[in-house]
């Protein structure tokens, strides 16, 4: 398979069915397919977990409850009581990113979160939500987050632009972090894995031995690390969503 040699090929989006609505190309691609698969997996798991709810939970149910408790715990810790309506959103964000990242760990599966279009839109959506909720809750007082209280006027001239820039850079960093982590990790895996055939071709049997003894453990380690990253990036995205939502919900800082 050609796919084996090019580390970027795994990120290639291919159209499966052409779809066009209002002049916009919304073709069903491999990316769309894996998004659908991910969502179906999450829904399937939750449906299984919540099919027989009981006071004494079975394994799947307690797994779902732990998951819920984990997300609700983040929201509670960061946003306290006003964050309660956002638990489903944070839960969905975490679930969507987590399952996409985990799907990406399987060879020949497509990692939907490795494209900036997806992660960037999620980040812009999150920040847009922060602004909308902030304006709804506090009106124009929401913009006080750019003007820290208790700072002398002269310093405000410097601090306020910094605050605005940091606010505007949030969607970029939020989307870029996830996209770059997934992309980088998968490229690294691919490149390391590519060492083995390269060594085998270049050095023959010795190269294969070297590949097996030296590179393979490295790949195993990086794969384990990538599983950690898959969870961690979903957690970070959910966590940062809560932190940013706090600007809209919490006290002005």
């Amino acid at each position, binding site marked *: 398979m*050609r796919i084996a*040699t*090019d580390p*970027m*090929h795994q*990120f*290639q*989006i291919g*159209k499966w069915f052409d*779809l066009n609505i209002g002049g*916009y*190309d*919304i*073709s*069903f*691609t491999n*990316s*769309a397919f894996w*998004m*659908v698969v*991910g*969502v179906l997996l*999450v*829904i399937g798991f*939750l*449906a299984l*977990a*919540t099919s027989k*709810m*009981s*006071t004494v*939970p079975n394994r799947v*149910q307690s797994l*779902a*409850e732990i998951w*819920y*408790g984990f997300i609700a715990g983040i929201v509670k810790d960061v946003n306290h009581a006003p964050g309660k309506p956002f*638990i*489903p*959103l944070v*839960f*969905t964000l975490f*679930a*969507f990113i987590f399952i996409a990242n985990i799907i990406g760990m399987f060879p020949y599966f497509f990692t*939907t979160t*490795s*494209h*900036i*279009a*997806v992660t960037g*839109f*999620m980040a812009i959506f999150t920040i847009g939500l922060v602004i909308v909720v902030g304006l709804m809750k506090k009106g124009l007082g929401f913009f006080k987050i750019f003007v820290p209280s208790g700072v002398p006027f002269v310093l405000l001239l410097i601090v306020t632009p910094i605050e605005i820039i940091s606010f505007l850079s949030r969607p970029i960093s939020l989307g870029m972090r996830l*996209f770059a982590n997934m*992309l980088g990790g998968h490229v690294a895996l691919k490149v390391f894995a590519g060492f083995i055939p390269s060594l085998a071709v270049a050095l023959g049997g010795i190269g294969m031995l070297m590949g097996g003894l030296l590179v393979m453990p490295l790949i195993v380690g990086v794969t384990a690390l990538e599983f950690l990253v898959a969870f961690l990036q979903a957690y970070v995205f959910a966590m940062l969503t809560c932190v940013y939502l706090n600007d809209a919900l919490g006290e002005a800082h």
Partner: protein
Amino acid sequence: MATETAEHASGSGFPPFDQIMDTGVSQVFWLIVTFAVLYFAVANVFLPKIRKAVEDRDGAIKRDVAEAAVLSGKADESVKQFEAQIAAARANARDTASKAKAEADAKTAAATAAKEAELNARLAAAEARISDTRAKAMANVSAVAEDAAAAIAEKLTGAKPSPAAVKAAVAGAMGG
């Protein structure tokens, strides 16, 4: 590598950026669709279910703990009641015992008194009989003495003394 790039002329080097113009709208569209489906499923179906199960469990635990506290209070009360009953029974028993003892004492005292009275009566009767007998005997003695004195006086003097004088003389001598 060269053939690869040739194959994917539209997005060769870096698909996330190269393909964003072609597929960006499609990716965002499917993201919105799938995310919205997941969000509504999570928000309207699954999370309420999970939350309800968790809250039900918390409620059940609280209810059970409260019930246990009530039962424990009841048990304490029963123990207190039981102890009170034991104390009452003990007091009752003591009461009964002392009453029985007093009754027995009274009976014994009465029996003793009755016996004593009987004995005293018999003693008195015996004493009365003795004194009666003695009086009778004494009466006989004075009659014999009068007869003997009268006979002696007649022998000595030849004249028969009057019975009254003899009686007075005997009484004087015996009363002596």
